[in-house]
């Protein structure tokens, strides 16, 4: 990717240049995990398997699906996931 804009850091530069990933929660107790099928082939099988593993562990899940695998998820879908779940698994399977 070519770079066209260079900004200068306005902070005290005490954190890495790359934005850190969110820290995983210490426990999944009481959390709801979103399982999102991105719409590629056999994604459903993968999600089914994950769902059964989570169910055995007593962790709540909710299923979601992108309308098409060729575009990013619609804003409404992402807002729904953010409102209803605390974690998400995005399933890619070919």
């Amino acid at each position, binding site marked *: 990717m070519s*770079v066209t804009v260079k900004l*200068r850091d*306005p*902070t005290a530069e*005490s954190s890495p240049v790359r934005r850190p990933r969110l820290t995983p929660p210490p426990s999944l107790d009481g959390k709801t995990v979103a399982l999102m099928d991105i719409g590629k082939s056999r994604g459903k099988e993968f999600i089914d398997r994950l769902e059964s593993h989570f169910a055995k562990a007593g962790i709540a899940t909710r299923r979601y699906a992108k309308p098409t695998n060729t575009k990013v998820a619609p804003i409404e879908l992402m807002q729904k996931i953010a409102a209803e779940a605390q974690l998400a698994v995005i399933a890619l399977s070919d």
Partner: protein
Amino acid sequence: MPDGLPTDGLVIVAKRDCPTCSLVEPIMQKLDRAGPFAVISQDDPTFPAGVRSVIDDHDLERSFKLNIETVPTLLRFKNGKEVERTVGWDRQEWIRLAGDAASGDGLPAWQPGCGSKSVEPGVHEALVARYGDPGLKSRAISVGNWDDPIEACFERGWTDGLPVVPPTDERILRMLAGTERKPDEVVGLIPPNLAPCTVEKVAINAVMAGCKPEYMPVVLGVLEAALDPLFVLHGLLCTTHFSGPLVIINGPAAKAIGMNSGVNALGQGNRANATIGRALQLIVRNVGGGLPGAIDRATLGNPGKYTFCFAEDESDPDWEPLSVRRGIAPGKSAVTLFHGEGVNGFIDQKSRTPEELVRSLAMGLFGVGHPKLCLAGNAVLVLTPEHYKIFKDAGWSRRQIEDALYQALKRPGRDLVRGAHGVPEGLPPSMAEQMIDKFQPDGLLIVRAGGEAGLFSAIIGGWPGQSVREECQAVTREIRP
């Protein structure tokens, strides 16, 4: 040397929009025929007419790299290095550099040139950013060519919730040109992380806030005042109370940068008012790490925590400005920082004498914090023109208004102690037999501002942290150029 120039020969940097360059156009045509020669044309590659070797310098890269300040500039190169130059039109100098072909028969002996486009205001900084060494020490953050820089600033947590101006080198260099202070000078340690803040970091955040370069001395003055230990910025930042820094500017600097002290002075619409207060908040956020919900524990906060800054109306020579009242010499620019909560509108359309208005204002001021709490936080009283006129017409000075309000703001402790009037909030029972002042001495800051119409004033409550006067007060500092 820049590409395309003769290794041994003459170069003229010119622009069509320069009468002197047009004057010497026939000479440029002669020199073109005489030998190795090129014209660097800043604004029109068809100028000068009849010259074969014209280099289009619309992007001003060559002019910048040759450090051109005036056009025309005649340069002579030898072995790829510049050996001589002259600026403007001067027959003797041109003949000395270029020989008789540059005699300019029929022209006046001398005519000054014009400014190079490469040194126009703002352009030079842009050229330094593009082609030179900007000398900035802050680390660079790259944004991909499909990404929106404004969104990148949001994603990195650099904003107060509103979009910021992306801090590019060009903008930062322009901002730094607004102060004589060196970019690496440390202004102070910003709480809560006590991170050193250089003038360069101030400039970056001022860019993001939307400041113009000429605001820089004021922004720096505001920050210095905020870092005065007596202002207790750390405490103000982490309080659960509403308050945040309220900035009041006095003196010629306020006028010079077009600050608003009139209609809607506490509201929106003026760039300097809006962005100077915002710059301080962004510095605290970005350099100091003072984030809402983290160290900033405000229960509710107030909208002024985006920005809260205005200038005092100093149009009446009879009025002693706030800064002068607080020890700054008349005619000097100054900043006063106060721990302000929101604006409480005060309406009195019936008082016609100073005595009536003082009694009425005192009733409003009693409400600061809580009507039964005293010495627990100070206040700013913003007197509008119509309320001020009542005092002025009676010949009252600032000091008389202050003294009268101080007296009017004394109340018997028995009305204020806990439980009095059926309200548990209040002062300790031991104060029941005393006369109690509402505010600390000098704790009521009176400032003039506002539009001509409206028998209103504004009361801006302070912060309970001000209750220990030796530890926490409003701060006034002179603004350095």
